[in-house]
């Protein structure tokens, strides 16, 4: 009790003298706010990317690719294979008894960003006639669905918002064709919204590259996956890999998300070291400025612990203020902003996603701030506590 009263009394005195040290204290607050803002906003990218990729794909859909393909880009399935996959066990069937699947292929289109006119690559995905059954989440929100056998495309909502020339009625040029945009679709915020879609057969016949790249099948249930996989693997005429759709997209985004996280921690870490030194400097000067007070209180019988805790408390509270400001800055400026990947998250083309400054990220940022504050306050605090009282009184 007495100890808490000591700490409280000394801390209160420290805070009352803060106005006299406002500029040096601001250095800590601003420095830490900067670190937290950068850390949180960069991490918000990986969180946003992961969130988008996690919402892409379902457990009851499977993607079939050529054996050994890491991504759809490096896969190729000929027509025979595509036909054999139709016989796989566990595929859901429609009212006519036909299996619900979509043999797909895709091309990379060169588009320009709305924001800065930068050239970006987007995906034009050729899909099968049963695409709406395979992807019930796909809804046309403007215009209409493309027709087979004519050069028509529908564009994802995110692609429509981010890239130029994708309004209904616009024409998108690719090698061999001019595609008319006839509709805009929504797939509930997943990665497909960053792409364009058309009929696969039309796409293949236009540029005369005669194969599919993957087949996406809707299964009877998530549990039917194993049976589906086993039945295809048992067919010696097929050299294929079968993965759950959700696992596929998570795998594709993992590397990119990891890289972003690493960048966040490296940049955040370097800045944090700088902020620790700023905090050290500030707290050392705070201790120096109060040397007489500290020496006097120590002489009067205040313990070393009270001195250490009060200096730490001050550093911690300055850091906390900085941390909260930084987290709020990141939230205010970046939360909900849409950005897109540069190259493409592993064969996914340009993925447009929302930065997500979640409460957990903001808490993480504030925790970083507190760690910086404690590290920056610790040594000055120990100095205040260790200085021999007789020497400190004479130094005054």
């Amino acid at each position, binding site marked *: 009790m007495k100890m808490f009263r000591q700490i409280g009394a000394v801390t209160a005195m420290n805070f009352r003298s803060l106005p006299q040290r406002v500029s040096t204290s601001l250095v800590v607050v601003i420095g830490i706010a900067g670190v937290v803002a950068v850390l949180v906003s960069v991490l918000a990218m990986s969180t946003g990317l992961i969130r988008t990729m996690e919402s892409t794909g379902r457990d009851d859909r499977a993607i079939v690719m050529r054996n050994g393909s890491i991504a759809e880009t490096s896969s190729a399935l000929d027509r025979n294979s595509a036909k054999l996959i139709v016989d796989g066990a566990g595929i859901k069937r429609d009212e006519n008894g036909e299996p619900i699947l979509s043999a797909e292929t895709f091309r990379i289109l060169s588009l320009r960003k709305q924001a800065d006119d930068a050239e970006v690559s987007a995906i034009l995905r050729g899909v099968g006639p049963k695409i709406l059954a395979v992807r019930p989440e796909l809804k046309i929100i403007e215009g209409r669905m493309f027709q087979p056998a004519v050069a028509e495309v529908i564009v994802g909502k995110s692609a429509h918002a981010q890239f130029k020339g994708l309004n209904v009625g616009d024409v998108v040029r690719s090698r061999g064709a001019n595609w008319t945009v006839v509709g805009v679709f929504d797939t509930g915020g997943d990665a497909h919204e960053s792409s364009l879609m058309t009929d696969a057969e039309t796409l293949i016949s236009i540029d005369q590259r005669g194969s599919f790249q993957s087949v996406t099948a809707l299964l009877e249930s998530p549990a039917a996956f194993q049976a589906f996989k086993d039945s295809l693997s048992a067919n010696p005429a097929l050299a294929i890999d079968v993965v759950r759709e959700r696992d596929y997209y998570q795998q594709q985004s993992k590397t990119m998300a990891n890289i972003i996280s690493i960048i966040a921690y490296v940049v955040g870490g370097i800045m944090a070291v700088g902020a620790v030194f700023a905090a050290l400097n500030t707290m050392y000067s705070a201790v120096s400025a109060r040397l007489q*007070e500290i020496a006097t209180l120590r002489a*009067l019988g205040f313990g070393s612990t009270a001195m250490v805790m009060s200096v730490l408390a001050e550093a911690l509270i300055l850091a906390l203020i900085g941390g909260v400001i930084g987290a709020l800055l990141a939230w205010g400026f970046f939360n909900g902003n849409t950005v897109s990947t540069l190259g493409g998250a592993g064969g996914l083309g340009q993925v447009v996603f929302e930065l997500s400054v979640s409460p957990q990220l903001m808490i993480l940022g504030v925790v970083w701030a507190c760690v910086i504050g404690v590290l920056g306050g610790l040594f000055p605090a120990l100095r205040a506590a260790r200085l021999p009282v007789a020497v400190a*009184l004479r130094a005054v």
Partner: protein
Amino acid sequence: MTALVTLRNVTKSYVRGKQKVEVLHGVDLTIETGEFLALMGPSGSGKTTLLNLVAGLDQPTSGEVLVAGDRIDRLSRGSLSDWRARHIGFIFQFYNLLPVLTAEANVEVPLLLTNLSKAERRRRVQVALELVGLAERARHKPNELSGGQQQRVAIARAIVSDPTLLVCDEPTGDLDRQNAEEIMNLLQALNRSQNKTIVMVTHDPKAAEYASRELHLDKGLLTNDTRRAA
């Protein structure tokens, strides 16, 4: 009278650079309860070092320091802090008041180390401030008070927890003659009417005249010990 402070064969040396400098050479000293002792001597004679040892601010290199029944040369740093809080009231040359606190809050500081209730702390602060004649300036901050008034606040802070011993390091060193006399009168009154034991380091022979005993130090040795009739 009983001995409040006993020093036996006390030495104190410091290391300055590579040199070991002995400041006190085997000092023996007894201070009785109720004495008002003035420690005098030239700069570097060891007055402040001796005062610091008696006040538990520093530890001797060798020898025994017995104050208020405790062998304080044997106490750890933490215990010594607690011991000072219980037994010593400090009065410094530059008052050492906390600039952000009002006079009454400054006086209350030593009481924060006790278990007294807030009301009781207030009451004692009031009494101490009345005793030094500054009750009406209780709400003023140090920078709103004159040097003499600040030293009175410091004296109130030193006596508020009713310590066993008051130690004063050049209490009039920063004051003009008139203020110095007022402070010395106050210390003398505390000694005489409250029977406070006071050990005071001073350069000022006029201030020393208020003490009941004058002790001279030179080059770390006691040279002259004079008792004055009250």
